[in-house]
């Protein structure tokens, strides 16, 4: 249940962030918006880290370097997304992005790549993903 609540909240934050970013981007520019919002987010996260952290170390040394690149991907995501919206419009761009994201996640989960606990994917899972993709297409195209 806790996981569901977090995931639902994550989705809501993503939508609100999308609305905010497009407004801010229109006012000061896409890159400015991306840099500014992530800088203030970073500062807020540091403050929260100071409040909540339990141990002295960060544990960062135990992390595979590859996994640390996740944060930097944000900039490439912003760039590709902006260019794509420019080329094919927001509707198609958003739908294709969601479907690609879902498909790769499904693949990684099913194959157990990147040390993810491998999940057995059988008919209901394939059907669920297919419905999800159909839903995205109905909603967005």
């Amino acid at each position, binding site marked *: 249940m806790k996981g569901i609540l977090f995931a639902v909240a994550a989705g809501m934050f993503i939508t609100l962030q999308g609305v905010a970013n497009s407004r801010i981007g229109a006012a000061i520019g896409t890159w400015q918006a991306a840099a500014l919002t992530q800088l203030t987010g970073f500062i807020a*996260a540091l403050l929260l880290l100071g409040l909540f952290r339990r141990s002295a170390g960060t544990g960062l040394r135990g992390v595979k370097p590859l996994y640390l690149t996740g944060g930097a991907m944000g900039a490439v995501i912003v760039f590709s997304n902006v260019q794509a919206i420019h080329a094919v419009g927001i509707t198609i761009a958003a739908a294709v992005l969601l479907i690609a994201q879902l498909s790769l996640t499904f693949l990684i*989960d099913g194959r157990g790549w990147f040390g993810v606990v491998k999940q057995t994917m059988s008919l209901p899972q394939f059907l669920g993903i297919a419905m999800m993709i159909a839903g995205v297409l109905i909603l967005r195209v």
Partner: protein
Amino acid sequence: MMTGISLSILAGCLLSLQNIFNSKVSEKTGTWVTTALVLGLGFAASLTLGLLFQGTRMFRLGNMEAWFAFSGLLGVGVVVCMVQGIKHLGPTYGVLVALSSQLILALMLDSLGWLGLEKVDFTMKQLIGVLVVIGGAAVFKLSGNKRNARGAVHEHAEMEGLK
């Protein structure tokens, strides 16, 4: 057309990797270190690419408003909740639920015309779309695979711990 589609596919794949990598980082470091790291690196990368594409124009914030700065908190919410969601539900189901909630809230904001969005009337097509999306998430979860069973035990243990 193809370039646009390819770029969208690239962005979607990177988003998928980002969520999985972030949850991997949090296994070793915890939620707050992960969030700070992700947003810090995101800032550095955006600043770098921005300077590359725009030069010093990057520092011209023409129509800056105070609330822009606070919207960074939404980014904190995204990272924290996504990492926690994936930790409890696994990558695919976590992303499925987040995606459903993302689409539904977007639809609500559009239909109500909130947050200064242009009001778009709610149609039958959208209702069907939402039902198919929620149905998809439910069908995915229907069959009891291993992680589901383990998750249930885990939650049970947590409940016991609360008593």
